[in-house]
């Protein structure tokens, strides 16, 4: 006689004990329960008293740190795969991406924004359909989860292009319709899921653009209305223009200090919006703490100006993890990789970074003297808040997604602090263990 199969018979509840949880600006000694069935952090007390649930597995972490899984909001590629590329066999893009996601998660990054640099239109049209939010099925073995694509370009200031090819940079003269044409209307607008009939978020989650170029300033509300974060970057904007962009809905600054006017005492430029004189909400801002893009003191000043908005990003290129040498780049240009430094060949232009996010956190610890939870907040709770995902990602509170990293804190003979990723958990299941 057929009987109803219990839906949770494969549920494994794991209890972490003897661990320190990153909660706000503190490390809290507390147990943590996660469920592999819901993929979420369990309201343990409620499950204990209400459902008489007890953990199936208890993991003693010996005092190590549990942080929410790291979130990188600016990652251009990794392990040899450049998101801004069209492979010879275009359909292989998705397959390679899946492989790369399984590698990325081993660095502790459990969710990220795959970032497309300034590219010809066809690159966006080919790549964006693969880069939308990928966590819908909540499958741990899928690896790092895309929270949506980040389009850094092509609506940038041609004089603050960094290594973005000037010939691809273009102004959006007609407003939002230009964005739709560039990225593809199905990528920038919510789409109807044919199976469930529900609206799905756009493939794009974040757009970096120069507000002073073309009609971008008045287009900002069209972007944010679709749940897409508008980020100021690669810009010649004055303080006044940056303030107007914030008033129009900009909530983020892409790699603060880099590819924008420097802080001048008579016109503080984009950095000025971190002041609080204008009574505008202060935006979040990305910081590349690879020790090359920014002087450590600049990072410290930015952190102290607005710690709640401080987001560490890697801006890493697909070369992260590959050996030193010269690599092909756009349009015949080439990139020289020397250690963690990437330069456009024949120039002194920084060509992104090749650093992992946890290394950025360790750098920041040493640059600033910040506490471990403060530094981890910049890659967990703060980017999650920037993306409107507070309490879902970047959190160890009950009902948040059980994306976790187990970290070991090390101090070398020189007193240099660093964090090592020992384990990574995605949706309540272990996907990486350094000791295995």
């Amino acid at each position: 006689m057929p009987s109803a199969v219990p839906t949770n018979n494969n549920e494994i509840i794991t209890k972490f004990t003897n661990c320190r949880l990153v909660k706000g600006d503190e490390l809290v000694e507390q147990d943590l329960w996660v469920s592999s069935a819901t993929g979420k952090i369990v309201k343990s007390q409620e499950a204990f008293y209400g459902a008489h649930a007890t953990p199936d597995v208890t993991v003693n972490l010996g005092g190590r740190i549990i942080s929410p899984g790291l979130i990188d909001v600016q990652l251009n590629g990794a392990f040899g795969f450049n998101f801004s590329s069209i492979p010879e066999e275009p359909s292989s893009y998705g397959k390679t991406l899946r492989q790369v996601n399984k590698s990325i998660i081993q660095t502790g990054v459990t969710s990220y924004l795959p970032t497309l640099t300034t590219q010809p239109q066809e690159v966006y049209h080919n790549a964006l359909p693969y880069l939308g939010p990928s966590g819908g099925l909540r499958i741990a073995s899928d690896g790092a989860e895309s929270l949506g694509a980040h389009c850094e370009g092509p609506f940038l200031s041609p004089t603050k292009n960094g290594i973005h090819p000037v010939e691809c940079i273009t102004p959006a003269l007609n407003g939002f319709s230009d964005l739709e044409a560039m990225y593809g209307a199905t990528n920038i607008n919510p789409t109807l899921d044919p199976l469930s009939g529900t609206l799905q978020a756009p493939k794009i989650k974040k757009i970096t653009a120069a507000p002073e170029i073309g009609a971008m300033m008045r287009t900002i509300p069209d972007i944010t209305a679709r749940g897409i974060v508008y980020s100021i970057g690669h810009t010649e904007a004055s303080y006044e223009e940056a303030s107007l962009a914030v008033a129009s809905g900009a909530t983020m600054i892409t790699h603060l200090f880099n590819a924008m006017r420097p802080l001048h005492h008579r016109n503080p430029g984009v950095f000025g919006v971190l002041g609080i004189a204008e009574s505008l909400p202060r935006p979040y801002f990305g910081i590349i703490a690879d020790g090359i893009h920014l002087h450590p003191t600049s990072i410290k000043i930015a952190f102290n100006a607005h710690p709640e908005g401080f987001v560490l990003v890697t801006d890493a290129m697909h070369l992260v993890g590959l050996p030193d040498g010269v690599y092909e780049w756009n349009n015949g240009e080439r990139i020289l990789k020397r250690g963690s430094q990437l330069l456009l060949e024949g120039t002194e232009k920084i060509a992104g970074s090749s650093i992992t996010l946890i290394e950025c956190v360790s750098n920041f610890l040493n640059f600033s003297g910040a506490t471990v939870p403060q530094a981890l907040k910049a890659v967990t709770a703060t980017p999650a808040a920037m993306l409107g995902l507070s309490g879902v990602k970047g959190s160890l509170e009950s009902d948040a997604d059980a994306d976790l990293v187990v970290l070991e804190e090390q101090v070398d003979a020189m007193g240099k602090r660093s964090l090592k990723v020992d384990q990574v958990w995605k949706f309540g299941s272990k996907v990486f263990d350094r000791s295995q």
Partner: protein
Amino acid sequence: MRLIIRDDPTQASSYIAKYIIDRIQAFNPTKEHPFVLGLPTGSSPVGIYKILVQKFKAGEISFENVVTFNMDEYIGIPREHPESYHTFMYKHFFSHVNVHPSNIHILNGNAPDLEAECVQYEAAIKAAGGIDLFLGGIGPDGHIAFNEPGSSLASRTRVKTLAYDTIIANSRFFDNDLEKVPKMALTVGVQTVLEAREVVIIITGAHKSLALKKCIEDGVNHMWTLSSLQLHPHPMIVVDEDATLELQVKTVKVIAPIPHIKIIPELTRNQYFKSIEAVASSQGFEQILPSKIRTGPRTTALNSTYSPSKPPTPATVKDEPSILSPQPVTSTLLAAPATEYPVRSHTPELVPDRMGSRIAAF
């Protein structure tokens, strides 16, 4: 009554924790015959729970076959509220040890029928075979559980309105907002506690010294509900030095001057209890419970008349203790007719008669 005095709260907590562990181990509980433990909330027991958790993690004790009953719970705040006693117990004890959630009993302050909840709670205690050891603390006014001054010493599990003083004292946990403080609670009664086979109370801190004095030096009084413990056959109170400050001076042989209370030249009564403890332990004599209560279930097979046609009776049966669930004197005083103990004959009525009538006639 045993009064155990330790130098500081930590030592007092550690004495009790060790005592509970010894009791559970001597009892050797099984699934069918669990050890039934009554548990309190509050600041004093936190140290005890901490040590119990340490001992559990060190593998020295298992709570696998321990059934627990908590003393009380607020009415009308959610179970997951940070100040609920469910949360307290989870945070300090249950989440760290292996008490199975189905073995845990805490009064439900959100039950649709609170009266029925109380009746069920008493029934559940009975069904579990009665409480083997009730651990408790007291308030500065000598209350045990939420049996505040004036509670009947014959009370049982019931709905209780909180005293205004208690509401004010609790408001510090509820944003200092009297509106948010629960005004009522469910609590076991004094009688419920006294029916446990053994009661162990922790009292620490100078602010509870008056309560300690009232409860052990003065008479049984409903204004200091813990004083009812004087009527229990097997009570033990464990205190720190500070809690003994109000105890009276008594002419008892000096054992040693108390180092940190040099300003008091006389002897205090706690030295009397200390001397008793010293003598008792020198003789290898501790508070003795009837051996069957002490050791838990008898495990001999009782089904000697086993026949294949009948289902086998369980091999282990929880023995009735030799004293049937030790009867506090209140039960004999209050619940007539008392049948468990021989009732002493009343003083005869005064019958006025002439002296001459008693002289045998010549």
